[in-house]
């Protein structure tokens, strides 16, 4: 038997799906978190019979008229896959909007049960609903549920099972093909079954808070303060304290294995196991507690309802530069991982806006980039929380500039799409959900360190241990290694950016496989077993020593960090860009743009910073400037070319 969960976006479908299947799918406070159907088996303790029941969670839609690809998934499923029962999740606090879709579902003739969800908010909002009358009016079973508290789930499933044996008949009047008539019919029902004690125009406390949080001038400073607080706690206070214990264990393990191997084992094999695998992976793993605290705090923020307000604040700025209002959702998802962020662009109807968003989303610092931020903030800036905060805002700035340039090249007018986002209620965030989210992401981090990072570090160690003739590299002669041979030819490009050495170049190159590799490779090539002090409870032990080994100034380090963050993401994310853009021209333009922007930002940070701190420009200022000018000349050429094409077309028309 198959039950489909269908309803409006943000009505709580995925929360209900998690509650009845025991799965842990990501839930979000905005529309678009679910853009594909998800399946799972009903929990045994909820199943009244013996037959297995499959639950299908469908993307949220407002009607059965599909506009975007994820809406088509719901449309196709309910029309063609013929589920045994549709459980229609209805947001009890917003009946008028929800029941429009319900009436369309009823016309399909598939057995239907209404889950009147978010019942806990009714009293708070002064709303009373006569659910029995609603059931009579529509000829369906109505069950009150609170999916966040597992309330009403037993009854909902029982009703769904018994409905599966019935033939669904509806009491709907004829002539509902016209949307206006359908809305009028729904409004009539709502008038009869709903009593609102609080007039909707009355300003609530939440409205008052929203006026400040989403204010045109205060919105961004408030967001900056919140992100600063998150980075302070995760990377300056609590994170390093917890990391200290973990690094202590990693250190002990390293020493234990080293003593076990003793002098008998081959130095090359010992180095591969100790420095390549244990050291390289250990250096990345050392950041696990920091990342977990950060994820925990971001999950609290999202659950509290604040992140939806950030979407509203940013929407204002993105629309001015030609992006869709919906572009903010992929970008927020991209802070977790660029791949689903890029995939979420399919909710944008306009092709140019969709491709532009797919090109710009990877600029947001994703989870894989966080260890690099933590490392460089710790080594060069005394655990400063402003470094992480700055990276998010530089990313937003780049996105706005990038969108503006693409708008000029493509000659797309300002966006006329309206981004409608229902702001969720502010609430005390669920510690349970944030903890589950934190452990889930922590597990993902460990799995990545134990697979792709481990393999890459081992490969880096092997390439560093041998020359091109497969002779073992002698100590101090690493520049003759295969790794140096591959990286050195690229290193000269980075001299104007302040990091023109093969070791840093090698780390940047491995970063294209997975961004955490930058940290692992730096640990391997510089022979640093961990970056976290076990004695002083500080993030990085002997930060000055580490900085001096790398041969970077603080300005050079900031440039290196920005280069790694704002050049193309990992290959997997590039693959997602390829799939969503569906155009080789756009893909290569996107990759070229990301390289150009990353290089330009790093160049200006290094050269300007060096000028301010030393009184003169850094090495390679002129060649670097030529490169930057070449990049902008290409963009100017594309803009001019497009202008000429448009003028030519206008001339032909006249």
């Amino acid at each position: 038997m198959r039950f489909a969960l269908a309803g409006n976006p943000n009505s709580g479908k995925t929360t209900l799906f998690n509650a009845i299947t025991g799965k842990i799918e990501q839930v979000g406070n905005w529309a678009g978190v679910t853009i594909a159907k998800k399946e799972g088996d009903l929990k045994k303790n909820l199943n009244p019979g013996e037959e297995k029941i499959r639950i299908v969670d469908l993307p949220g839609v407002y009607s059965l008229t599909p506009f975007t690809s994820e809406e088509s998934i719901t449309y196709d499923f309910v029309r063609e896959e013929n589920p045994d029962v549709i459980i229609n999740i209805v947001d009890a606090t917003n009946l008028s909007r929800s029941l429009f879709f319900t009436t369309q579902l009823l016309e399909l003739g598939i057995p239907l049960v209404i889950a009147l969800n978010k019942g806990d908010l009714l009293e708070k909002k002064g709303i009373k609903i006569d659910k029995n009358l609603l059931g009579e009016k529509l000829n369906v079973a109505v069950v009150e549920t609170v999916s966040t508290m597992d309330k009403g789930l037993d009854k909902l499933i029982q009703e769904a099972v018994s409905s599966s044996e019935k033939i669904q008949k509806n009491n709907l009047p004829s002539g509902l093909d016209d949307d206006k008539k359908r809305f009028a019919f729904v409004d009539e029902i709502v008038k009869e079954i709903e009593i609102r004690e609080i007039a909707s125009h009355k300003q609530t406390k939440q409205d008052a808070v929203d006026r400040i949080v989403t204010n045109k001038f205060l919105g961004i400073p408030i967001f900056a303060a919140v992100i600063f607080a998150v980075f302070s706690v995760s990377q300056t206070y609590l994170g390093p304290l917890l990391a200290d214990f973990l690094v202590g264990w990693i250190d002990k393990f390293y020493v234990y294995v080293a003593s076990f191997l003793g002098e008998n084992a081959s130095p090359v094999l010992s180095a591969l196991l100790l420095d390549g695998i244990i050291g390289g992976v250990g250096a990345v793993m050392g950041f696990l507690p920091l990342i977990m605290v950060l994820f925990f705090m971001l999950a609290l923020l999202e659950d509290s309802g604040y992140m939806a307000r950030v979407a509203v604040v940013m929407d204002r700025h993105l629309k001015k530069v030609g992006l869709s209002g919906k572009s903010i959702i992929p970008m927020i998802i991209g802070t977790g991982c660029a791949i689903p962020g890029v995939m979420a662009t399919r909710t944008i109807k306009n092709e140019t806006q969709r491709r532009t968003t797919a090109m710009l989303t990877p600029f947001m610092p994703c989870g894989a980039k966080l260890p690099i931020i933590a490392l460089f903030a710790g080594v060069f800036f005394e655990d400063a929380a402003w470094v992480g905060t700055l990276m998010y805002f530089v990313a937003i700035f780049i996105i706005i500039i990038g969108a503006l340039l693409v708008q000029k090249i493509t000659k797309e007018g300002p966006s006329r799409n309206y981004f409608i986002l229902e702001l969720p209620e502010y609430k005390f965030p669920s510690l349970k959900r944030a903890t589950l989210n934190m452990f889930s992401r922590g597990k993902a981090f460990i799995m990545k360190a134990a697979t792709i990072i481990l393999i890459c570090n081992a490969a880096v160690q092997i390439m560093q241990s041998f020359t091109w003739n497969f002779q073992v590299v002698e100590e101090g002669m690493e520049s003759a290694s295969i790794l140096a041979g591959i990286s050195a030819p690229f290193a000269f490009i980075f001299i104007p950016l302040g990091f023109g050495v093969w070791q840093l170049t090698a780390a940047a190159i491995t970063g294209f496989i997975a961004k955490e590799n930058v940290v692992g490779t730096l640990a391997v090539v510089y022979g640093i077993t961990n970056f976290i002090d076990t004695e002083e409870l500080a993030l990085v032990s002997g930060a000055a020593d580490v900085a001096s080994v790398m041969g970077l100034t603080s300005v050079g380090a900031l440039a290196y960090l920005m280069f790694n963050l704002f050049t193309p993401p990992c290959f997997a994310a590039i693959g997602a860009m390829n799939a969503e853009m569906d155009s080789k021209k756009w893909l290569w333009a996107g990759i070229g743009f990301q390289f150009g922007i990353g290089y330009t930002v790093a160049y200006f940070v290094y050269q300007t910073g060096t000028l301010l701190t030393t009184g003169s420009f850094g090495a390679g200022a002129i060649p670097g400037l030529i490169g930057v000018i070449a990049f902008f000349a290409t963009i100017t050429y594309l803009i001019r070319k497009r202008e000429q094409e448009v003028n030519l077309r206008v001339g032909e028309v006249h």
Partner: protein
Amino acid sequence: MADIILTAVIVLIIGAASLKMIRDNKKGSKCAGCPYADQATNSCNAEK
């Protein structure tokens, strides 16, 4: 002898890591390269 055991251990570790990656890729998830993806959204198995 120590080198043989050490080589076997290294091959075992790298082999296990490689196998895990191959298995993940075979699942067909579009986010196989990024384990954080499932925590960010529900779109990894989305079909175009």
